[in-house]
């Protein structure tokens, strides 16, 4: 029961689907933007898989991906077991962090909120390092759960500490900076304590990197995304309402506290799972929602998928850049995203100030 653009005359910039069970309203730009983003991601993925110590022509990559015969007999192995899982892990991490950031910005009505800024990533990272050092026997599958718990506790701590007869976005960010610093110091303490042999490896992980990700990591992250991304999308309308402010939301019949709690939980879950796989990769959750908003507007039904794709695109591209600029040495993609994201954050800060 689709009726496309029923109110075309009234609101020419919206696409509306209605059915008995649910209805959805999308910005008219959404399908085109999503389509272009998917194409871009495919393009960058193929380039990223072609590139490496041993260069594979893109056409070979496409053949290997489609399971066809390749001229180079090793191409299929190289693509399917080494390079493809890493690229997909990057895509997943980017999507998770981007949606986590979109939720946070919507719920806190704070354009500067992002998982790394309010300390969720640092808390999740701390727990992951603690487990790597203290309980190395724990199966990898449980790592995202642990990271989720760590991120959740940190988020609660930041929220409680920032509560002073009400919470303000600014205090939240400041308290987040302080708590993140403490978590980072504890992480260093653990690394010193545990004498992690590969300090350089730990350093790479802490900066955020998909180095060494295989199908195992892809599979671990996958269920988290499959549960929480659709869930967030399903809550898009609630997010829209929350963005208007608590009073308006209550007036419109929202159960504000409950919905906010559920959304924050989702955001922390996505962050925790991403951190468990790729470390504390910065600024994706900050950049992707803003870029997406410029492309498809602020309505969350379109914003969430667009931000997810942009986040994935950024991480895949950042990984490619990190591998290629100083080849054969790899820069962790966290360095690349920091170089992109820090100036962007400053730009947002000044824009926020001028409002």
């Amino acid at each position, binding site marked *: 029961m689709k009726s496309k653009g029923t109110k075309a005359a009234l609101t020419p910039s919206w696409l509306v689907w209605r059915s008995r069970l649910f209805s959805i309203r999308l910005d008219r730009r959404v399908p085109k933007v999503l389509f272009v983003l998917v194409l871009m991601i495919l393009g960058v993925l193929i380039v990223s898989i072609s590139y490496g110590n041993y260069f594979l022509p893109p056409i070979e990559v496409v053949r290997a991906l489609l399971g066809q015969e390749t001229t180079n007999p090793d191409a299929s192995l190289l693509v399917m077991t080494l390079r493809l899982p890493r690229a997909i892990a990057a895509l997943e991490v980017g999507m998770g962090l981007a949606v986590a950031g979109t939720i946070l910005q919507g719920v806190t009505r704070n354009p500067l909120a992002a998982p790394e800024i309010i300390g969720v990533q640092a808390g999740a990272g701390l727990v992951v390092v603690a487990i790597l050092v203290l309980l190395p026997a724990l199966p990898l599958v449980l790592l995202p759960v642990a990271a989720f718990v760590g991120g959740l506790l940190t988020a609660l701590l930041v929220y409680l500490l920032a509560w002073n007869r009400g919470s303000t976005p600014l205090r939240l*960010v*400041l308290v987040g900076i302080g708590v993140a610093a403490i978590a980072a110091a504890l992480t260093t*303490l653990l690394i010193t304590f545990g*004498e992690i042999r590969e300090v350089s490896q730990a*350093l790479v992980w802490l900066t955020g990197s998909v180095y060494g990700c295989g199908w195992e990591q892809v599979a671990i992250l996958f269920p988290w995304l499959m549960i929480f991304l659709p869930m967030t999308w399903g809550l898009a309308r609630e997010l829209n309402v929350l963005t208007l402010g608590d009073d308006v939301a209550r007036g419109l019949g929202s159960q504000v506290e409950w919905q906010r709690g559920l959304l924050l939980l989702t955001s922390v879950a996505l962050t925790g799972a991403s951190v468990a796989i790729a470390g504390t990769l910065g600024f994706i959750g900050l950049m992707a929602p803003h870029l997406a908003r410029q492309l498809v507007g602020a309505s969350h039904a379109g914003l969430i998928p667009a931000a997810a794709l942009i986040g994935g695109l950024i991480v895949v591209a950042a990984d490619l850049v990190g591998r290629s600029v100083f080849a054969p040495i790899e820069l962790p993609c966290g360095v690349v995203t*920091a*170089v992109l994201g820090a100036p962007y954050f400053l730009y947002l800060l000044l824009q926020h100030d001028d409002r």
Partner: protein
Amino acid sequence: MVDSPTSANQWLRLRGRIIGLVIGVLLLIGCFLVSLVAGAARTDFNTVWTALFAFNDSTEHVVIRTARLPRALIAPTVGAALAVAGALMQGLTRNPLADSGLLGINAGAALAVVATTVWLGNASMQFFWMAFIGAAIAAGAVYFLGSLGRRGMTTLKLVLAGAVLSYLLAAFTTGLLILSERTLEEIRFWLAGSVAGQNLEVFWQVSPYLIAGFAIAFSLGRQMTALSLGEEVAHGLGLRIGRVKAMSAIAVVLLAGGSVALAGPIAFVGLVVPHLVRFWVGVDYRWLLPYAAIWGAILLLLADLAARWLLQPQELPVGVMMTLLGGPFFVYLARSRVKS
């Protein structure tokens, strides 16, 4: 103002401040001695005394002279420098959350040192002077970024700009270290903020700059008091604001850059200490600055002792210790001092 202590009240206050100063100095000396005595190898005050004044080639004496003495000298020097720099920055920007670590100045100095070391491929800290250049550039950048925008400089904007600048500079530093794995081991501990493993040679090289920084800072006491009351007040008192700001900025760069050259980037000293000593001496910078220097020195000596003692036989970088102590304090200040 206690310029002419005529009334009994002012006498009392002056006496209290002098007593506080004396107590501080005595405590500092005590901590210094404990820092010399404490360590993996058992020693007592006697050994320390003979090591310093009647040196023979025994292992204990060598340990004290080459490992503990540099450390016991560098820790208080760095602590004092960072605390005074923090106090100056808090007055200069009228921002209760100012600290050379939080605002990215330390990160800038560290990046400059690491970059030069990697570039020229020599890790013996001979490029310490690059720290001053890095600190100056980062200080300029954060001040510029913090005062952009329509509302001028606000606490939040300055702190956020500093936090992001630190993040960016630290990412650059990490990138450089990964690119040249060779220097990683040598520099990693230093980068976490550590007063261990440094020799006195660097200390003597850096100290002239630090002394200059302290001299400028202490000479600005009266002006800083006026400036911290607000630019209008300072202007009304006939202060040449531009000159005072420039001088104090130079002092901050010298002190922060010098301490990074000695001990790597250590945050929160400059945040915590000025707030603590304000309880005792109030807002008068002529007293605040020397008090900050003494208590900064004590704090870092104690933090270093704790860092040595906590995970025996391993050592924590003292910068980690300071963050564990200073982070909660920052959160407390963010809650109580920042009006939104």
